[in-house]
């Protein structure tokens, strides 16, 4: 089911490949070819660093079907250091409480298992707390 749809998104999901606008230099994620800042054509590829901070977050107790097995889990609006905000799950949280402004970095994880009888797993970006160095 929907294999081509997920295949189309692989560069973004695995490597955060977006775009940069040649007219106003805005960094764009997800890529959309039309710059949301200036309206110009923007097809220049740009790979994001995967570093950012939590802009907001929620812990989801009532999950959509396909995700209910892992509930509760935490989804965030992550503000990437290059500017755009993206929606992604937080992971590897341990006992650490989530806070607005918390620095996070991208990792690749299983997003969901779709159509389990055919065993198709969907991987993509999640974000984990930036490991603070022990003093």
């Amino acid at each position: 089911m929907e294999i081509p749809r997920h295949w189309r998104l692989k560069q973004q999901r695995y490597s955060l490949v977006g775009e940069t606008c040649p007219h106003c230099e805005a960094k764009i994620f997800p890529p959309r070819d039309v710059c949301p800042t200036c309206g110009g054509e923007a097809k220049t590829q740009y790979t994001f660093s995967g570093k950012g901070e939590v802009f907001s977050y929620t812990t989801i107790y009532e999950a959509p079907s396909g995700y209910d097995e892992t509930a509760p889990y935490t989804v965030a609006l992550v503000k990437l250091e290059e500017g755009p905000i993206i929606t992604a799950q937080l992971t590897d949280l341990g006992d650490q409480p989530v806070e607005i402004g918390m620095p996070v970095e991208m990792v690749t994880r299983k997003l969901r298992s779709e159509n389990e009888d055919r065993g198709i797993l969907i991987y993509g970006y999640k974000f984990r707390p930036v490991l603070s160095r022990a003093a």
Partner: protein
Amino acid sequence: MRQVAIAGIGQTSVDEHWEKAIRDLAVDAILAALMDAGRQSAEALFVGNMMSGIIDHQNNLGALIADWAGLRSAEAVKIEAACGSGAAALRAGLIAVASGEVDSALVVGVEKMTDQSGHDITAALATAADADWEVDHGVSFVGLNAMIMRRYMHEYGWKHADFAPFSINAHANALHNPFARLHQAITVEDFEKAPMIATPINLLDASPTGDGAAAVLLLPAEKVMSNNQRPRTIIAGSASVTDTISVHSRRDPLFLTAAYESAKKAYAQAGVEPKDIDLFELHDAFSIMSALSLEACGFAERGQGPRLGLDGETAIGGRIPCVTRGGLKARGHPVGATGIYQIVEVVQQLRGECGPTQVEGARIGMAQNIGGAGATIVTHIIAAD
């Protein structure tokens, strides 16, 4: 363009109508609206609905409902804009009659939700958001609103309990609406200890789903007379504006730009300002949306929406009475039908039919219907004359 009047209104209760299919609900509301207007039929039918293809395994709703309502040969289509489908369909009907293309149009909003399990409904509602860039990451529709609410509380320093008056007011008003889903008053204490859905949104921040249909009959205003029992109700303003579909793409995720712009257009068309609005049926799918809608429409400063609730200004008798028949929170939110319920309720207010929740001397009412987390926002101003 001609002026257009709402000549008839009809609604079913919002409930778990196990015995009724989507077509039955729509037909009930349509027949009630036709009877209210003293009419037999209409030339065109616009159906507001979000999820029939997913939930009822049924598209081509225009033809289905025209057929079952006995509207032989009528032009009929479904209009979809997620939870904003109802008001989007009203605009389609308005444009059809105002332009002179047709001389009468029925608009029905209908949604049948209780045939499916909670997780499947949660997944279906999430189709209002961006499938590739939001929903695949596991965020529910509630979750999107929850992230807006969390950031809003962080930036403006509100506590969760500060949003309670919006839900308390909705539940209090619904006690007097026989068509409402919930007939149960709530307290701040109830609000604070309700089960969590997606932090910080709990069950009493969020509107309940349900089955329901509401309908209006639109006619050219010159064909409708006012009388002592019933003033003529005119669509004085109507505007629909979109914003980015994803919350994360907004320049300012805490401001409903599409609400601001659609209200501004509707005010200009009607020749009114916020202070002229006697009541406001806003889209309180979640308590945070009440605050954001009041701010964007000019009733509160940025970040100060909850203050209106805390000061009692959104209750009956306040400065801007809101959700006077229970709103999405307590009348219920059968998603594609909601926008038409709001219009029916504004007309009831302008006719003076609202009993204990009647707004004294109401002449101008506003309704705002939102599709997605602020992506499609449709504002209507209805005036009695």
